[in-house]
């Protein structure tokens, strides 16, 4: 990995007659392929895109506030969770509270002893079901939360399908997740 661009001292001795008067001025357009000397435009474009993308990512993140959601018990208590603005609220869908009709899905979410009824016009996607933690985006109106976006928050626990089916099916409350 010697730097071939600088002539080696021993080369200079041996090839001094060969190199005498050698014109080494850079000529960008006449090198065999021109690769080495051409300013590369591709990477510069990529870099510009990268910088723009980086800024977009950061502003999106900061614009949506650092904490992605407020828990049910924090609504109108914690700073940034005041009830008069658009919120994301996290809670577990209570057992037996889920009703669906053609246009609406109604359920109650609970967290840390506090509950909140939710109306969502549409059918939430994902693994939406009872006893699962969800994040609902919307606005509080007369004690009911009008959701326009429901995301299912999965826990970091994984269990095989049939294992804990029996003991959860018989209890009337959701199995307590940590």
């Amino acid at each position: 990995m010697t730097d071939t661009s600088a002539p080696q001292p021993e080369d200079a001795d041996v090839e001094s007659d060969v190199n005498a008067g050698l014109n080494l001025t850079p000529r960008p357009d006449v090198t065999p392929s021109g690769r080495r000397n051409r300013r590369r435009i591709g990477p510069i474009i990529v870099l510009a895109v990268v910088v723009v993308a980086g800024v977009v990512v950061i502003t999106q993140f900061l614009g949506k506030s650092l904490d992605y959601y407020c828990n049910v018990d924090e609504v109108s208590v914690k700073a940034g969770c005041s009830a008069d603005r658009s919120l994301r609220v996290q809670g577990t869908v209570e057992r037996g509270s889920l009703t669906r009709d053609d246009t609406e899905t109604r359920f109650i979410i609970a967290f840390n002893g506090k509950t909140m009824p939710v109306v969502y016009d549409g059918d939430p996607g994902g693994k939406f079901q009872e006893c699962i933690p969800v994040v609902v985006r919307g606005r509080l109106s007369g004690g009911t939360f009008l959701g326009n976006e429901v995301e299912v928050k999965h826990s970091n626990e994984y269990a095989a399908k049939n294992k804990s089916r029996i003991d959860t099916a018989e209890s009337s409350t959701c199995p307590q997740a940590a």
Partner: protein
Amino acid sequence: MSTTVPNPQSIPGTNASAVSRRWRGITSTGFSRVLGVATLVLVVWLVLFGLLFSPPDQTQQSSVRIMYIHVPTAWVAYLAFGVTGLSSAMYLFRRAHSLAWDRVAGASAEIGVMFMALTLITGSLWGRLTWGVYWAWDARLTTTAFLFVTYVGYLAVRRLGGSHQARAKRSAVLGLLAVIEIPLVHFSVELWRSLHQEASVANPSGDVKMDGLMLFSLFVGLIAFSLLYFWLVLHRQRAMYLEDQYDDADLDVALVERRAETKEHSRA
């Protein structure tokens, strides 16, 4: 991307040894071949355990199978960017300023970017199935996207041109700075409230809440992709050595041309 690939006309005639090398793979050695076979076997295992032997999850059903490739690709991306940082440090702080370290850094980052892209894609497909959305601007997803973008930038900076040493120096500084983001990404789910679940295995409390066969499948994935990473880095940095040599050979050709030119001038 392909600026260093020689055009076919300039390739000198192949002799017998070159032909045999071609079939063996010029960047292959006995070790890399053993590693390659082991990787292939483990990838087959991953597919068998991930798709057939492991049970469906009680809430996620079969979408849990995405985890066995999603988590290992994320882990390999962390590993790759970590190796890039380490190699950048070795290049910068060692007296020799060896281009070998620079090539390891570049090879690792390139492979890391690919794995990170796969992490984002598999993750968003999983997100659609489980959360109901492909993307959410929450802490883990955002920091991961930012990490990905950073290393795409790193790869672009490597290709800005100039001498090999200039390339090595500027990318080493960037490689060393960018590696700081990795702990931020990993602990983002603890630092902020995130839609993404906390780590199931590498979490601070240390208890793993996962079914045995699922955990085993995940480990098969981790080992398979780690071996694959090492195989790829080994070959990629050797290929980079060849490409660097090709660039240098190009300069030699230019010098020969200039000498011929000078001779002609003196004769005239």
